[in-house]
């Protein structure tokens, strides 16, 4: 493998139902930073059926070039045709870096493709930067420059590791949704669009989609919320979430929850914050009746302001809260809602 041949930062531009997923824009934002450090370009790889029209959107979010693989076999996500499509793009265009979202699609596609093109893959990264490997020069070992350094949590957030892929290309990473920042879209931006079709011949690895069952949900995506009012087991009952909903409404926020609440069947999984739920970074995160297990903290600690209310003064949530209030949420939260309502009315 001649590593020098591999150039450019590539992003898998995930789309579902011909709508680009937010993670693709987030990856483009990060890819732009990396490409600047490497003095190279950002390429989005768009796979699907009838998706060429989406290329302009990718340009607006930072893609210099868009490679479109358009084929009826790619209509809905299936591992094999998508792996074939992406691996073929990698083999033909030879990217230096290939970023994929750590979504239910990306965490299936990424490993399959990395195994096919025989390179390493670092999962669920939270920080990506360009640097040296080894980090410090070691006698007797060549220090390589311009490497992708991929930082990720492990052990449920107990530890953090920085990984490099120094001798194989592309350097592949999956990145958690909600971690990287998208750029302000540049209206009217255009990218070089190139169409490529490696040919899709169904074989034993093509599975058949017999049915697609979409979850019926009216809720807002908690990852987009600026203010989250999050409840844990301490809220006591599904009915009592009403006091959190009232608080959220006054602030124009959204209610989310901990895993214990989902496991108890009080709230649906798409409202769950944490390691096995979603990573959120709102301006304000209220942790109400949440003890703060490390798996929960991993999903919310990047919030700008964390306010915790808990009756247990020793709850670990107070270790990450900017403002911790030890007390009874049933007394404090309704009064807080009323006080904020009065403040906001007075300010108008």
């Amino acid at each position, binding site marked *: 493998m001649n590593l020098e041949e591999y150039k450019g930062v590539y992003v898998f531009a995930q789309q579902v139902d011909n709508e680009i997923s937010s993670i693709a824009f987030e990856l483009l934002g990060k890819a732009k930073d990396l490409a600047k450090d490497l003095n190279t370009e950002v390429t989005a790889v768009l796979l699907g059926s009838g998706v060429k029209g989406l290329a302009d959107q990718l340009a607006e979010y930072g893609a210099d070039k868009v490679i479109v693989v358009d084929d009826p076999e790619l209509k809905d996500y299936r591992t094999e045709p998508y792996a074939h499509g992406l691996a073929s793009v990698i083999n033909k265009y030879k990217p230096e870096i290939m970023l994929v979202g750590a979504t239910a699609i990306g*965490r299936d596609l990424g490993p399959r493709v990395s195994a096919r093109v025989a390179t390493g893959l670092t999962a669920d990264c939270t920080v990506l930067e360009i640097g040296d490997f080894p980090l410090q020069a070691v006698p007797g070992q060549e220090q390589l420059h311009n490497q992708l350094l991929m930082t990720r949590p492990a052990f449920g957030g107990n530890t953090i590791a920085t990984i490099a892929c120094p001798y194989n290309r592309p350097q592949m990473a999956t990145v958690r949704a909600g971690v990287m920042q998208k750029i302000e879209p540049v209206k009217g931006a255009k990218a070089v669009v190139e169409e490529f079709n490696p040919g899709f011949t169904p074989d034993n690895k093509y599975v*058949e989609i017999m049915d697609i069952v979409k979850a019926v949900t009216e809720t807002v995506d908690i990852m987009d919320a600026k203010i989250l009012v999050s409840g844990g087991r301490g809220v006591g009952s599904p009915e009592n979430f009403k006091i959190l909903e009232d608080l959220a409404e006054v602030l124009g926020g959204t209610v989310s929850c901990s895993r214990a609440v989902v496991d108890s069947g009080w709230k649906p999984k798409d409202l769950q914050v944490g390691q096995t739920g979603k990573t959120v970074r709102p301006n304000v995160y209220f942790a109400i009746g949440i003890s703060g297990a490390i798996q929960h903290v991993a999903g919310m600690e990047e919030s700008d302001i964390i306010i915790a209310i808990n009756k247990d003064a020793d709850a670990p949530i107070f270790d990450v809260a900017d403002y*911790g209030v030890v007390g009874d949420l049933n007394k404090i939260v309704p009064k807080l809602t009323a006080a904020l309502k009065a403040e906001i009315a007075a300010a108008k």
Partner: protein
Amino acid sequence: MKIVVCIKQVPDTKGGVKFNPDGTLDRGAMLTIMNPDDKAGLEAALRLKDQYGAEVTVVTMGLPKAEEVLREAMAMGADKGILVTDRVLGGADTWATSTTLAGAIRNLDYDLIITGRQAIDGDTAQVGPQISEHLNIPVISYAQNIKIDGDSVIVERQFEDRYHVLKAKMPCLITALSELNEPRYMTPGGIFDAYQQEITVWGRANLKDVDDSNLGLQGSPTKIAKASDKVRKGAGEKVTLDADESVSYIVGKLKDKHVI
């Protein structure tokens, strides 16, 4: 039907985490359990065995101590256990782990391979799909329901906002979610039997069609540059006040920060 289940002995993350000087995990120094997603995968295999009849073989790669999870699996009802252990396999990343397990599985007959979605130590979710690629068979990740239909499997595959009902011809690899089921307990008779049975131990020499350059620390494309305990931003203020004062405190902070 023959089912191979890949399981992993993992550190119980409730205990402490310890590292070797090279940044890899000091697995010998930590308390261990059977990885939860793998246990769900094993349970799924045992239910297929109950329903359709099957021979269930569990395979693990690890230190000699990993024999413990094989015994546990056999006490739950697995028929055979294979431990893949060898000094040269140590320090493997997901690529080298998947080439190793694929090399072991090539010696076996199988209709179905089941792995857990991900292990609680690395959380990568990579090894299952990578094994399927090395073996050139289809993969269905994130399975929340598994049925057999003749020579095919029908699986509900979970996504964030939907699930797909997928049909794949066997042989096929499935990765299981811990939500898939509630794993059964070991039975006293099962525990007794499990300790009577032989565990097959394989080393490097038993791996089929695998090049040395794809094994162990040396054969791992990803390299650890740095590993450490996570540094958190640290606690802020903590107050204990009555309800009205608590409210004033929070409102004051929200005003200071221009939230309201």
